[in-house]
């Protein structure tokens, strides 16, 4: 049986600039300790859904106008992003968004700031991240802006993990990266999931990689969930690939 949900999205609608309806009634659920994939083509509403959960739509003149988000059975639809991060729910933005003028290590330290942990605890956390991402340790003194795309993606994930989250919303980690690096990153995500018990809600256009690692998946089209099910079941349905996931998906 699946464990109880740690995150539930209940029929949310997201509107930008008071007129652009980006998400029309999406519902989904993430069970504790699982990886759930959110798939769909460009503009399907994946990022908007994630940002609605993490309360980041507000910073882009967006708003959740209907529905609600439950995190650990609490309604967090109107909760501020920093409160969510402290509560263990953190998002890794699409396009990585590292602090380019800060060193790799400063980027990681910034990730721990919301938590107000002691210096010693932060140091321990840093070592933990470096164990998962040895490449980041090698580059700790470099400015993040000068690291490679793969390293930046690792840094963005590591930075989010510094807040010791229970749920990570991971937006398109594979974007613009070579397949080998994508595999490396997904393997680390899988290890974090198993070893640290972190749950992931993962938005991806690269459905084949995502389905390989996810337990469950939702497929979005034009702001609606058009299909969902276990990763195996969805992978087996060839119609889904053709209809919603487009070309570039290994059958």
């Amino acid at each position, binding site marked *: 049986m699946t464990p109880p949900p740690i995150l539930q999205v209940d029929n949310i609608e997201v509107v930008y600039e008071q007129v652009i309806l980006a998400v029309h009634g999406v519902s989904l659920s993430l069970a504790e300790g699982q990886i759930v994939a959110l798939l769909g083509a460009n503009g399907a509403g994946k990022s908007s859904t994630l940002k609605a959960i993490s309360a980041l739509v507000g910073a*882009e003149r967006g708003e959740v106008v209907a529905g609600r988000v439950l995190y650990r059975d609490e309604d967090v639809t109107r909760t501020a*992003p*920093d409160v969510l991060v*402290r509560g263990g729910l953190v998002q890794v933005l699409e396009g990585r*968004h590292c*602090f380019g003028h800060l060193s790799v290590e400063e980027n990681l*330290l*910034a990730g721990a*700031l919301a938590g107000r942990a002691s210096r010693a605890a932060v140091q321990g956390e840093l070592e933990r991240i470096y164990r998962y991402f040895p490449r980041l340790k090698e580059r700790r003194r470099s400015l993040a802006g000068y690291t490679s795309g793969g390293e930046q993606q690792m840094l963005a994930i590591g930075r*989010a993990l510094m807040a010791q989250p229970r749920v990570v919303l991971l937006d398109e980690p594979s974007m613009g990266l070579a397949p080998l690096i994508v595999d490396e990153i997904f393997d680390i995500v899988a290890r974090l999931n198993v070893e640290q018990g972190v749950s992931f809600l993962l938005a991806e256009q690269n459905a084949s990689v995502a389905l390989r690692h996810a337990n469950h998946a939702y497929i979005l089209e034009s702001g609606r969930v058009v299909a969902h099910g276990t990763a195996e079941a969805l992978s087996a349905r060839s119609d889904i690939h053709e209809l919603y996931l487009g070309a570039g998906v290994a059958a």
Partner: protein
Amino acid sequence: MIFFLETLIGGLLAGTMYSLVAIGFVLIFKASGVFNFAQGAMLLFSALTFVSLQEHGIPFLQSLLLTVVVIVIGAVAIERAVLRPLMNRSQITLFMATLGLSFILEGLAQGLMGAEVRALDLGIEDTPLMLGEVMVSQFDLVAASTAAVLVTVLALLFNKTHIGISLRAVADDTRAALSIGINLNRIWQIVWAVAGCAGLVAGLLWGARQGVQFSLSLVVLKALPVLIIGGFTSIGGAIVGGLIVGAAENLAEVYVGPSIGGGITPWFAYFLALVFLHVRPAGLFGERAIERV
């Protein structure tokens, strides 16, 4: 030669006074992308507060501390009442808001503390000092040292503290900072308070030189060319920009002034800034996006 050196050094030292004003702009611009027109009014307000406290017989250090408390309260109030409600608006809206804010602050300052010119004595003697054969103003020397101390403190704050990391993170990528739980509202309060304190230092030095009065808020007009030359996003740029403006003004006044009838100082900085706008629109130290290699 000695006369040239004196003119140059006098100009450089005077330039640090411009830098002090410019630093307040840079801090706020970096953290929130707002060109804070109210920086001059903040400077006037804090200097007036300090002078009024002194006039009530409160000793120097206590007056300074109380003024800082007022600045912090002011920063929090400005963030809540002005910045937060306008959070997602365009830059021009925010600029207009700071324009309004500057009138409110100036009105408030004069209403509460009076409009007459107040003398401010920081106990710095304005007698010339001989460094070898070169004569320099003692006051300018103190002003320059104060600027150096302020910059050092700011550098430590930015590079060695957790608050510094969050300030730089917000300046670098606001959305990313939000996503990792940095509280933007608190960062803005801190930045406005720090910029207010930088303004206080500048206000005290300018006030000691020309009296604390309404025209103090007009030193912002001196900071603008400094910012154009040094770049809006770099404290180092504000320093170098101030030095360039100060030195150029002094040299131009002495060497070019006589042949065109003097009175160069009021506009020469703007002329220089225009030249820089053609050559380096982002300023000498303006932030360039990092190009990944």
